[in-house]
């Protein structure tokens, strides 16, 4: 700590250069912060997927329905402890661009299946007693400025007509990366008002297994149970489903890694150049430090500490700005299920910055360490 003034003063000796380098690092880490935020958003389902939940869909495709009668038969399969179901509504609120997912659900079993969502008990009670009621996630409510008590019209695309709902409750996620963009309403309402061909059907089932280790066996048992029926099933873990969705969006991770790699490399050159110049123009002073008793290792440490301070400072600024940006809200206006920069990802960014610092400082630091006092003093 007592060396801090020396390190900081040296850092800002050439102010323009220091700020330009600091700026480069900050911009790079700002970018990093945004990229991981978007990546988190697009692969959201994968990380929060319940390990003990399976999704059962029609084997032909997700949009083919399954009979409601499967509910009781699923419950009979060993290892299955709970079952709920939902259907995709696909309604449009005012404009096609205002997309958010809408599910027709069985309220009691649905909320039990997803303990990560919570609804104030009074609101939930109202919803249970309101045939035309709905509950939406706080992200979507905030996006459209909806309040409990509002009446919300959706134009059906799969199920024709205009459907009006009473907003009875707003749900929140217990974790920051839980999806709070969904819109839930009673399956009974869809059954009553919906077309004849959909009566007695649901979109998909969600099943809880008694133990995640049994998931593979239960998946096999379910698909075997309905094999050779008119509605064969395809069952998989929730995680696998979420992952296959994320893949459809494109290999986001690869793109992010490529951009990140290029930025990281450029940053190494920029910071490395700054540090090399800083050491070169300071040969005489480094010799003086050694003369008064700084060891070779000590001088190495000083130069490394300087590079590290520079990189970490830039990193803190960049990541701080990225965090502030995510807090100010999703720039797509709610298209992303979540827009959240997790603390551990910020820590990862800082680690990356620290790596830039050490790697870019190592060559100049070794130069400084190897410096022979007598040679250096003759040069000044």
């Amino acid at each position: 700590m007592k060396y801090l003034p020396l390190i900081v003063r040296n850092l800002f000796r050439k102010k323009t250069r220091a700020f330009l380098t600091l700026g480069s690092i900050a911009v790079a880490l700002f970018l990093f912060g945004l990229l991981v935020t978007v990546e988190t958003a697009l692969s959201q389902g994968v990380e929060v997927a319940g390990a003990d939940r399976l999704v059962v869909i029609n084997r032909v495709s997700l949009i083919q329905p399954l009979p409601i009668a499967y509910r009781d038969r699923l419950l009979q399969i060993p290892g299955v402890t709970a079952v709920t179901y939902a259907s995709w509504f696909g309604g449009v609120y005012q404009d096609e661009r205002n997309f958010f997912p809408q599910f027709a659900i069985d309220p009691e079993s649905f909320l039990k299946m997803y303990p990560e969502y919570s609804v104030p008990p009074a609101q939930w009670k109202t919803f249970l007693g309101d045939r035309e009621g709905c509950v939406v996630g706080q992200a979507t409510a905030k996006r459209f400025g909806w309040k409990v008590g509002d009446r919300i019209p959706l134009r059906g695309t799969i199920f024709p007509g205009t459907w009006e709902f009473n907003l009875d409750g707003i749900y929140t996620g217990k974790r920051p990366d839980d999806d709070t963009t969904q819109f839930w309403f009673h399956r009974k309402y869809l059954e009553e008002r919906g077309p004849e061909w959909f009566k007695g059907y649901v979109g998909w089932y969600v099943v809880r297994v008694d133990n995640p280790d049994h998931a593979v066996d239960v998946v096999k048992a379910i698909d075997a149970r309905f094999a050779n029926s008119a509605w064969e099933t395809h069952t998989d873990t929730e995680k696998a489903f979420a992952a296959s969705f994320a893949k459809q969006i494109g290999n986001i991770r690869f793109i992010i890694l490529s951009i990140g790699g290029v930025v990281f490399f450029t940053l190494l050159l920029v910071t490395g150049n700054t540090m090399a110049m800083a050491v070169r123009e300071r040969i005489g002073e480094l010799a003086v430090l050694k003369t008064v008793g700084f060891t070779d290792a000590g001088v190495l440490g000083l130069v490394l500490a300087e590079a590290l301070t520079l990189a970490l400072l830039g990193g803190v600024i960049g990541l701080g700005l990225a965090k502030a940006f995510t807090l100010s809200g999703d720039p797509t206006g709610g298209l992303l299920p979540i827009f959240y920069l997790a603390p551990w990802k910020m820590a990862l960014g800082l680690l990356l910055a620290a790596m830039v610092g050490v790697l870019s400082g190592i060559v100049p630091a070794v130069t400084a360490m190897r410096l022979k006092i007598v040679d250096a003093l003759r040069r000044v």
Partner: protein
Amino acid sequence: MVRVDGSDVDGSLIRVRNLDKTYRRGSEEIHVLQGLNLDVGAGEFVAFMGPSGSGKTTLLNLLGGLDTPSAGSIRVGEDTVTAMSGRRLTGWRARHVGFVFQMYNLIPVLTAFQNVELPLLLTNLSRAERRRHVETALSLMGLSDRMKHYPRQLSGGQEQRVAIARAIVADPTFLLCDEPTGDLDRKSADEILGLISALVSEHGKTVLMVTHDPRAAEWANVILHLEKGALVDSPQGNAGS
């Protein structure tokens, strides 16, 4: 007590025997120092003179453990400097040697106070103790009112006084000064030399100083000349005082 004949005498603080320093430039060998002997007692103020390129800086660097000789030995007190290297030599230098150079060599981004504090950062002294030592050293140099100044805000003479304060702040066994007044006008030079000589007479320091300037050398109590790689008593013959 200062001798250059290499005969063993009691009471030398610095004892140099048969010192050789040879530089290699390609196939050519330059014998800068050859069989140099020197004994200096504690509390002496010695001036080294000699033409440019005679090896004065080389000798000082060897005495201060900044460089290693080709042959010969240097002892200071109980320590054989020429047998030490690396971390041990660095540690010895920090404890026993104070350096003053012609070009002051202050760190421009640090204040006078911080420059003087540098050698103390390596010790276990507390912040308050460091402050006390730095203030003492700077006030000895008459710079109590310049502690917060940066080198560029000081005159050449003041900068050199800061450099001397830095050299003495850790209370070294001896001071090595390489043309400390080479870059100064007469008045500032005399001020600096007065301060150095006060360090010797009032604080019992041992000082070895290289200078080109005969008037600067006059301040020392012994003047030695470097000739053909070895030291000789000054023609005025006041060695052995």
